[in-house]
């Protein structure tokens, strides 16, 4: 069970307070109509799903009601950082 540092509440909080928001940093295409079905499907359904470093969104549902991003290792579940939406992670790559 994860313990997640909320970058708004500035505290570690229990996983039960959060909901998972999926892969982060996926921008909605500006002109969906110009995309092929395949390109649109890529946006809709295809995710990195890495074994290792993953940048993902979390929603502090029963706390501050803010979305934020986390860098988490999907094997160890270690959360390496949390950061604001619209900013870039400090930790990148694929392995911890």
């Amino acid at each position, binding site marked *: 069970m994860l313990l997640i540092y909320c970058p708004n509440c500035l505290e570690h909080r229990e996983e039960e307070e959060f909901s998972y928001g999926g892969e982060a940093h996926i921008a909605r295409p500006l002109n969906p109509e110009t995309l092929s079905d395949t390109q649109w*499907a*890529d946006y*809709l359904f*295809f995710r990195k*799903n890495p074994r290792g470093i*993953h940048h993902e969104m979390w929603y502090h549902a029963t706390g501050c009601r803010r979305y934020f991003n986390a860098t988490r290792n999907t094997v*160890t579940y270690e959360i390496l950082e949390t950061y604001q939406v619209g900013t870039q992670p400090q930790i990148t790559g694929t392995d911890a």
Partner: protein
Amino acid sequence: MKRYSGFSLLKNALSYHENWQKVWRNPTPKRDYDVVIVGGGGHGLATAYYLAKVHGITNVAVVEKGYLGGGNTARNTTIIRSNYLWDEAAQLYELSLKLWEGLSQDLNYNVMFSQRGVLNLGHNLQDMRDIERRVSANRLNGIDGEVVTPQRIKEIAPLINISPDSRYPILGASWQPRGGTARHDAVAWGYARAADALGAEMIQQTEVTGIRRKDGAVVGVETSNGFIGARKVACVTAGNSGVVAAMAGLRLPVESRPLQALVSEPIKPCLDTVVMSNAVHGYISQSDKGDLVIGAGVDSYNGYGQRGSFHVVEHTVQAICELFPAFSRVSMNRQWGGIVDTCPDACPIISKTSVDGLYFNCGWGTGGFKATPGSGYVFADTVANDRPHPLAEAFNLDRFNTGALIDEHGAAGVAH
């Protein structure tokens, strides 16, 4: 292959069990094969078996990074049923169920397929509409099933709580008598033994680290024990499909999630059927050893950790205690997690890919074990003939482009 029977058991007992044949060889890999199957779980082993048995393709290696049947085959709650809603899924699972019904004899290995029936409970009016819809579709598809009342449920599972005063009272259920459970390890071992007997080779403790291609076609796999050539490579690596796909430069619409399960200590038999509830979220059966085998939820986040959050276990156990208040004083003996590939439409992918000779079978989510024989059967056919088996057609990768998803229930939460 020396056949197993009561007689062979007796004969071997007289010689102190010193003369049993090996269930399978443990050969060193050859330089190349007609087909390399990546992943030695139930689905991969079944694929090897049907490639040999149905299609006469015996120059096959099953390459497994750990031990045979050690992934989700060893970690699931062994429930088998075919009462799926949509025609495409129902037909695939029904093929599976029919294969299950003769599997022990076919493999000459008792997989202990026990047709003790499956109840899917309904707890609100919409549940009951959905149950009626599903059972109605099942009947017209030739799949057994009926809608049963709480009183009938109580007869089938006497310890269940059908009080109308429950927080979410049981209003009814679908009942598939042909459903049941099987002994999960035996399925992997039985397929491996039978496939081995037909010539397929089991290569354990060998991890595939790359998929070698030439001119857009697959030529083999890189492994922790060196390169193995192959004209065709069939990947069946539940939980790690995305990672394997990436080796061939492919992306799959799957995400890997921890799915949890737990068992109680053995108790005297008191539950002779499988009970599943989506609304209060738990499913339970009792094994032939006496353990209550309980399926817990899927964690909400991606993970490869084969473990999960304790609060998921808590919610599941609450659900079980709601359904079976008497089990409150029974104890949890062990809990664990598996990694499931989840697809946006909660249906599998059984598909050719853009790489010639490379095939994928993945995305079974929580439904993989029950599909083992059917999955192997249609995948073997797809690989052997380089075109989708008719029952696999709907489960192609292109459906994510066209939008022809099979069950968009599961798609409700995607898109961003």
